[in-house]
């Protein structure tokens, strides 16, 4: 169902009498990618609670094509940086990101992952934002963001993936 969302009508032609849809290879690949994103099981701090709630039954991100959380970075497509990155944790976050296979995406969830949040002043141990360590695709404000906000950010990421060009390297 989600597969057909955002599809360009010009690219789709239904052939009468046969269940066939014609579309460009680019659209098909992007639609496949954006609707089977596996999330890295990885929470840094309190935002991880909201992330778990988003994955659980009440909000259930599987409805939007995010399916199972991947227990290994090798199988994950999306890293949700849910929480504060400390100076000590930063090299490990970077290593997890590097272990993920291309194409890979990063969502910075919450104030801490965007800028350091409440720790922006007078803190000796906090990295001022996930983008100081790894490239970030989507920023979701909030402290912490509600599950609706996270879902909205993830759907925005799907829209971003749908705009990718085959001729250009992903992310």
């Amino acid at each position, binding site marked *: 169902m989600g597969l057909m969302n955002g599809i360009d009508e010009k690219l789709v032609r239904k052939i009468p009498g046969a269940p066939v849809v014609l579309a460009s290879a680019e659209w098909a690949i992007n639609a496949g990618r954006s609707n089977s994103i596996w999330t890295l099981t990885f929470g840094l701090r309190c935002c991880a609670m909201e992330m778990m709630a988003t994955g659980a039954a009440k909000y259930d991100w599987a409805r939007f094509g995010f399916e199972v959380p991947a227990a290994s970075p090798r199988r994950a497509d999306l890293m949700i940086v849910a929480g504060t990155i400390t100076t*000590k944790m930063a090299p490990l976050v970077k290593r997890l990101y590097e272990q993920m296979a291309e194409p890979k995406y990063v969502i910075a969830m919450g104030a801490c992952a965007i800028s350091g949040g409440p720790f922006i002043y007078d*803190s000796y141990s906090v990295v001022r934002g996930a983008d100081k360590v790894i490239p970030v695709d989507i920023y979701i404000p909030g402290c912490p963001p509600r599950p609706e906000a996270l879902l909205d950010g993830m759907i925005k990421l799907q829209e971003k993936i749908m705009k990718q060009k085959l001729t250009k390297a992903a992310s």
Partner: protein
Amino acid sequence: MNFQEILEKIKTKHEVLESKEDLGVLNAYIATAKIAAVAAFMKDELKFEQLNFITAVDFPANNAIEVVYHFFSYETADSVVLRIKLDRAKAEVPTISGVFKTADWHEREASEMFGIKFSGHPDLNRLLLPDGIESPLRKDYKNPDMTPLPKA
């Protein structure tokens, strides 16, 4: 026991330099060299079996760092705080990890956070901090990555 009774009991065996009451809890200042002996006395004779925590407070205006030992007794549900005044430039105090096993990690944390040397400690490594951050809880700690809080 109220704090006065506890103070009298400590005074029978050990010298108390200074004492005050804070929220009904005795705060007693002890000589630096005596801390291990006083801690053993607290544990064995006054039955303060638990050392809740060890931390420190920095007073740059007085050029002093105070090491704070918080004891608790399960028998009488009393608390006692022992304090030691140290010179900021050469902060060194004997370890009490021989008396209370839990003091081991507490002293490592106080050591990395305040730059206090606990002499005689079996393994005074860093506990939590990564390399490159030295005594960050001292009031005069400076770090180029730190943004100072703007004045309101």
